[in-house]
C-alpha cells in the first residue's frame, strides 16, 4: 500500500506540475499558429522575441496532422480562439478563414510595401515571402528548359513524372488555380489525362522531389522550397516554372492574419508589423527555402538566384478566383477518393 500511495503522490505531483507551468498561465505570451516550415520559421520567431521581449507559443502545422490542418482547427476554435495570429504558408486557406468569419482586419503600415494583388484591401490578410510551383528536373536525364519539359509532359507515358496527392497543400492550390482558369470540368479532364498516362502520384512535394533527385523520375511537380532542399544536397537538378494554360505562373505567398476576438490583439499587431517588414522578407529569402520577397527590399542583400524568381512571381495568377474554387475542387477530389 505504501508504494501505491507513493505512486499516487508522484502522479498527482506530476499533474500539478504540468498544469501550473508558467507557460500556461502567462498572459503576456503570444499564440501563433504557423503553417510555414518550422525550420525556417523558428529563427524569425526567435528574432521577434529577441527584439520585443514578447514570448511566443507556437503551434506548427505538421505532415502528421494534415488530416485536420491549422485552417480547420482555427474554424473549430472560432468561438473561443486560443490563437492570436495565423501565419499561413499559403493564401487560399487564409481567404477561406475570412469567409468563415474567423479573422479580424488589421492593415499594418508595413503592408503597404506589398503589391495589392497579394493582400486583402480590407486588411483581413496580407501576403509576403512567396513560393512558386515549379517542375523539378533531373539534369542527368533531361534538359531543364520549358520546351523539353513541355515535350516530356506531352508524351504518351508519364510514368517518370511525379506529382503529389492534390488533397493536400500547394498541389491543392495548384488545382484551384487551374480550376479558376479551366473551370472544374477542364480541371477534371486535365487530371484524368495525367492519370491515364500513368503519372506517379506520391504523398507530398518532398517525395516528388526525392524521386527526381534519385533519378527514378525525370520531372516532378513541386515548390521552390523543396527544389532548394535538393540544391542544398548538391543533387543534379534544375527548375522550370509551372505555367497555367494562360501562361501565368503559380505564386503562393505566405499570408498573415489576426484572429477575431484573440486574447492578445496588441501583441498580435506588433507581430504582424514585424512579419511584414522588409527585414523578415530578406531573412526568409536568405533561408533554406529561398522565399521570394514580394515587397520592395534591398536587392543587394538577396541571393542572386532569386532575381529570376522575382520576375516569375510578378507573372503569378490571381489568387482570389482560385480561392473561390478551392472548396469545389476539394469536394470533387473527395468524391473521387471515396468513390461516390
Amino acid at each position, binding site marked *: 500500500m*505504501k*508504494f501505491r500511495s*507513493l*505512486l499516487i503522490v508522484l*502522479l498527482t505531483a*506530476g*499533474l500539478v506540475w*504540468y*498544469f501550473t*507551468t508558467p*507557460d*500556461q498561465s502567462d498572459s503576456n505570451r503570444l*499564440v501563433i499558429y504557423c503553417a510555414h*516550415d*518550422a*525550420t525556417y520559421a523558428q529563427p524569425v520567431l526567435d528574432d521577434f522575441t529577441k527584439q520585443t521581449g514578447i514570448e511566443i*507559443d*507556437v*503551434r*506548427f502545422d*505538421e*505532415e*502528421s*496532422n*494534415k*488530416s*485536420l*490542418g491549422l485552417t*480547420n482547427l482555427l474554424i*473549430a*476554435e472560432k468561438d*473561443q480562439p*486560443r*490563437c492570436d495570429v495565423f501565419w499561413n504558408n499559403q493564401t487560399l486557406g487564409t481567404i477561406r478563414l475570412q469567409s468563415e468569419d474567423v479573422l479580424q482586419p488589421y492593415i499594418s503600415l508595413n503592408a503597404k510595401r506589398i503589391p495589392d494583388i497579394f493582400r486583402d484591401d480590407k486588411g483581413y490578410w496580407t501576403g509576403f515571402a512567396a513560393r512558386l510551383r515549379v517542375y523539378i528536373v533531373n539534369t542527368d536525364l533531361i534538359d531543364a528548359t520549358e520546351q523539353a519539359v513541355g515535350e516530356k509532359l506531352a508524351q504518351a507515358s508519364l*510514368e517518370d513524372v511525379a506529382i503529389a*496527392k492534390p*488533397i*493536400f497543400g500547394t498541389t491543392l492550390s495548384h488545382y484551384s488555380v487551374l480550376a479558376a482558369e479551366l473551370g472544374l470540368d477542364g480541371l477534371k479532364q486535365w487530371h484524368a489525362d495525367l492519370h491515364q498516362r500513368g503519372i*506517379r*502520384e*506520391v*504523398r*507530398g512535394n*518532398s*517525395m516528388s522531389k*526525392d*524521386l527526381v533527385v*534519385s533519378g*527514378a523520375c525525370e520531372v516532378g511537380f513541386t515548390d521552390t522550397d523543396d527544389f532548394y*532542399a535538393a540544391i542544398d544536397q548538391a543533387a543534379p537538378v534544375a527548375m522550370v516554372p509551372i505555367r497555367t494554360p494562360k501562361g501565368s505562373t503559380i505564386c503562393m505567398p505566405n499570408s498573415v492574419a489576426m484572429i477575431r476576438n484573440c486574447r492578445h490583439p496588441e501583441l498580435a499587431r506588433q507581430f504582424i508589423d514585424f512579419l511584414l517588414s522588409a527585414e523578415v522578407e530578406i531573412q526568409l529569402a536568405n533561408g533554406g527555402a529561398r522565399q521570394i520577397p514580394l515587397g520592395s527590399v534591398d536587392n543587394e542583400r538577396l541571393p542572386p538566384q532569386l532575381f529570376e524568381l522575382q520576375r516569375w512571381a510578378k507573372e503569378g495568377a490571381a489568387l482570389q478566383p482560385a480561392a473561390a474554387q478551392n472548396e469545389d475542387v*476539394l*469536394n470533387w*477530389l*473527395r468524391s473521387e*477518393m*471515396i*468513390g461516390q
Partner: protein
Amino acid sequence: MSFSLVLCWSVVRAIVVSSVALSVFVPLRNRLFQSRPTASLARWVSILAVAPLLMPDLLLGFTYRLASAGLDFSEVATELLYACLLLTKVLALQVICHWLVPASNVSKSAIHLWKMSVQTSFTSRLLLLRMILFGPNRSLVVGWILGILWCFQEFETAVLLQIEQHPIAWTVWLFDAKAANEPLINCVLFAVPAIIIQGLLIAAGVALLSGQKLQGDHQTKPDEYAPVSSVGNRSMSFGPHCFLLIVIAAGFLITVVWPIVLHGAAGINGLWKMGTTAVFQVGLDQISKSLAVAALSAVASWKLSRWLFTKPSYRPAVLAIVPGLLSPLVLSLLLLSLFLSPGFHLVYDSWIPLIVAQTLWLLPRAFLLNIVVERTIRSEQIHSAKLLSHSFDQQIRKQAKRLLWILEHRPAWLGVTVLVIMAFWEVTISSILHPVSLQPMVCRLYREMHFGHTEVLAGLTAMSVVFPMLALAIAAQIWKLVRS
C-alpha cells in the same frame, strides 16, 4: 478505391503476414526453443527476433521511405517491402507469446489419444478443434491473432512508404478522407467495420487466454510432452535450422541494424553538435514531458484495464475498449470536438485531452497485456515467496524479495513499459491534441523527417530512443527498490 476494398486489402494482408510469421515460427519453436542443448542459442535468437518490436514504426517508415520510392514503381514490390517490415514485428510477437502465454493442460499426447478414439461425429470433431486451439498451440494462435491486429492497425510506416496508393491501408485511407474534408461522423461510420473486425479478434484472443488457471502451469509446458523436440533434436539438419536463423537475422538486419547504419553516425554527430546548444535542451525538455504524459496515460490505462478485468460483467470492458479501436485519427477528432464544447473547454489547452486520448487508445492493448500478465503470474509461487520474505534469515528474505519482483512485479512493469513506449511514439493523437505550449517530441521528429535534416534529426532520434529507455530502466530500479 472504395473503403470496403481498402478494408478487405488490409484484412487479407494482415492475415497473410501473420500466417507467414506463424509458418516461420512453428518450425523455429519446434527445432530451437524446445531443445535444451540449444538453450543459449535460443536466448540469442529470441533477442534478435524481439528487437524489431522496439524499433518505432515512424523510424522504420522513414528509413525505408526512399527505398520504397526506388522500387521502380512496382506496386507489388512496395507491398512486399511493407509486408516484410510488418513480418519482422509479427515474428517478434510470436516469440513474446511463446514466452508469456501459459501452457494449457491439453497436451499433444491427449490430442493424439483423442484422434485415436475414432469419433467422427461433428461434436467430437469440434471438440478436437477446440483442443488443438486451446491446447498446445494456444500461444501460436494468440500470437497469430495479435499479429493480425498489429498489421491491421499499422499507420505510420504505411503512410511514409506510400506511393501510388500502395501499400493500401485503411488507416491511411481514413486519414486522407478527413484531409479532404470528409465529415467526422462519416469517418466514424467508415471505421465501424474496422472496429468490428478488431473486436472479434480481441474477443477470440480473450477467449483463448481466459479459462481455468492451471495447477502447475509453468512446469507443464505442453511441449515437454511432445515428441517433436526430441525427434527434432535428433533429426535436426543444418539446412532448415540455418534457413530459420537467416529469416530471424534478416529481420534484425532490416529493422534494427540498417536504420542504425544509415542514421547512426549522423546521430552521434548530431548529438555531439547539439550537446551544448539550445536544441539539445529543448529536445530533452520535449522528451521528458512527452515521456511523462506517456507514462501517465500508460499507468492510467493499465490500472483501468486491471479494474475492468476484475468486473464480473464483460460489458464495461467492451464499452471501454471500443474508442481505442476507432483508429487514433477518429478518436482524436472526436475528443477534439468534445473538448471544444462549452462544458470541457476549460481544459482544452492543457495536457488532459492528450492524456485522455492516449489512455483510451492504449486501453485495448492494456487489456490484452493484462490478461497475458494475469495468466503468467503463478499465485502459488508468489504465495511461497511472500512466506519466505518473512523469514528470520536476512539472506532468504532478500532472495524472496528478488523472487517476488521476478514473479509478480516485473511482468506488470514490462506491461506498463510496452504501453509507455507505444504512447510515446504515437504520432496522430499527439499532433492533434497537444497543448500549444509544448510540442511532443514525436511530432517534432515527424516534422524534421519531412525535410530530412539528417544530423539534427538523427541526434534527436537517438535522444528519443535512448533517453526513454534509460528513464524506464531507472524507474524499474526505483520500483524494485521500493518493492524490496
